[in-house]
């Protein structure tokens, strides 16, 4: 850890501030932490990441000291976001409110004052260079594959004070804000996946025992769903059926997924501990310990199939180049199914129709708590070779020519 004093006195006009309110444990903070690290590492931008819940953050950054209001890791200043702010906000060149979180009123007052002062200066006046511009203000939105994203990405939101806030939409098209993907990620993944020793070493490091190199390993990071219960019941009895009689291992962290299968384990939730394992028929359930983001990526790279949720793990599962099910965050009126359909449509563009159909049905069944997911799973496994190949091809198609960080840097330059 390095001292913060330098960080706050250098480049005060050029640093970027990211405000993140933790809503769902690891989703919001997962995305903003990855983005902050990448911007610091690849663009040498001085980043202040303001977080309102360091406790949740510490699960994916174990080195974090929850008692410290200022600390620095991976070149990023991590600041406790208290209400009211007890660390003074100093405007930089960019201000991000992640996922439409409500910025502290003191921050808005400061940038509005800056805007007013800047507006009153004539462009050719000698004062023009002395009055700093307010930061570019961005609302970093949720990732969606829906068509409307392209039409809304980058549009200004006119505030009553006259200052503009821009809506920045991550997305899969050239016209969107792109997807978070570190420069060397695919090379690191390929290198990791080229040697089975890496995955076995990882499983050992995580305390997961009894996994053979040829076993079928599934990571599960979902919300509660009866579909998961049904799948586990099926996997228990899956010997002599598909997957060439491979043993199946489901790697499940403490949390929402585990609630769905607790009835199968015959123990109470409170007694379960990380690294514990439960063998039932052909299935072994391993309780995953929490890991940092680097190890989580490696875990996804190491499994044969990933069940992921929300936004951050959803994207990382795509970058893992392995088949996956996406358990999307549920919304009112089942609107999440519209979002799921939009992603299924683009993910399936280069898949053969019958495989696309099976993959779609599996995802919808999982999201709709449908225990018929088992039927679709059986079909999905029989199509696993083309599905695996598609999963390998997809990341390059999805990332296109530029990732989110590089598009964001360009956006700020031109705004």
């Amino acid at each position, binding site marked *: 850890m390095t001292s913060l004093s330098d960080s706050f006195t250098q480049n005060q006009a050029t640093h970027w501030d990211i405000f993140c309110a933790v809503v769902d444990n690891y989703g919001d903070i997962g995305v903003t932490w990855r983005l902050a690290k990448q911007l610091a590492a690849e663009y040498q931008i001085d980043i202040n990441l303001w977080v309102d819940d360091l406790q949740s953050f510490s699960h994916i950054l174990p080195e974090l000291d929850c008692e410290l209001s200022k600390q620095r890791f991976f070149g990023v200043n991590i600041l406790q976001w208290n209400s009211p702010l007890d660390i003074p906000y100093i405007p930089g060149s960019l201000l991000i409110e992640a996922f439409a979180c409500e910025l502290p009123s003191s921050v808005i007052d400061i940038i509005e004052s800056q805007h007013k002062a800047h507006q009153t200066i004539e462009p050719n006046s000698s004062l023009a260079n002395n009055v700093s511009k307010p930061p570019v203000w961005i609302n970093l939105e949720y990732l969606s594959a829906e068509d409307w994203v392209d039409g809304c990405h980058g549009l*200004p*939101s*006119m505030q009553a004070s006259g200052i503009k806030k821009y809506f920045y939409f991550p997305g899969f098209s050239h016209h969107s804000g792109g997807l978070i993907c570190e420069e060397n990620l695919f090379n690191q993944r390929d290198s990791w996946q080229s040697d089975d020793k890496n995955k076995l070493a990882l499983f050992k490091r995580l305390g997961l025992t009894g996994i053979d190199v040829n076993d079928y390993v599934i990571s599960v990071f979902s919300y509660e769903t009866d579909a998961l219960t049904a799948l586990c019941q099926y996997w228990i009895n899956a010997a002599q059926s598909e997957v060439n009689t491979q043993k199946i291992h489901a790697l499940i962290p403490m949390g929402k997924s585990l609630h769905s299968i607790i009835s199968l384990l015959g123990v109470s939730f409170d007694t379960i501990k990380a690294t514990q394992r439960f063998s039932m028929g052909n299935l072994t359930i391993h309780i995953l310990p929490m890991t940092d983001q680097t190890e989580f990526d490696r875990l996804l790279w190491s499994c044969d199939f990933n069940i992921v949720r929300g936004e951050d793990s959803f994207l990382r599962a795509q970058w893992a180049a392995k088949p996956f099910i996406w358990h999307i965050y549920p919304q009112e009126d089942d609107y999440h199914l519209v979002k799921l359909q939009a992603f299924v449509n683009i993910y399936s563009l280069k898949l053969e129709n019958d495989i696309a159909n099976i993959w779609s049905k599996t995802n919808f069944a999982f999201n709709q708590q449908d225990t018929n997911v088992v039927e679709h799973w059986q079909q999905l496994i029989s199509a696993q070779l083309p599905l695996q190949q598609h999963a390998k091809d997809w990341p390059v198609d999805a990332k296109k020519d530029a990732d989110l960080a590089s598009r964001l840097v360009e956006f700020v330059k031109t705004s």
Partner: protein
Amino acid sequence: MKTAHELRPGNVIMLDGSPWVVQKTETTRSGRNAAIVKMKLKHVLQDSTTETTFKGDDKMEDIILERLACTYSYYADPMYVFMDAEYNQYDVEADNLGDAAAYIVDGMEEECSVTFYEGKAISVELPVTIVREVTYTEPAARGDTSGKVMKPATITGGGTVTVAEFVKIGDMIEIDTRTNEFKKRV
């Protein structure tokens, strides 16, 4: 104050000290149920338009300008002519109607609210719900797995609305003019 979600074509809002007429609104849903409202706005005093985006719960000052209840009378390119109860006529530029123009049809009886700024009719606000006939829509489609099967339909006047799968040509449907959403078959 109104939230962005409550604004609809014809409303006038104050931004950065200037009045803007809302010409078009398009509401979509972001993550965690949050609404995003994309709007087309026209500056009341200048001949300029802009596209902008708001969070659904962003609050903004809607200006209470002089308003009169009127009914649609006729179209004289490029003006829509409205008439009040005392048979006074008011011209509104077609551009200023924005999305509302799709619901203006000859013989319509719904009462509209014409807004004036410095004596000039600048916009028209439709009733919140309006009933129109479906003039064309495809037969019910099958195979959609989202569970929210909708399809496009053309209504009297030529506008398009996304309707439920069961709606047929000739049906009268209720539409929410704030969101252009199909509400029900009547």
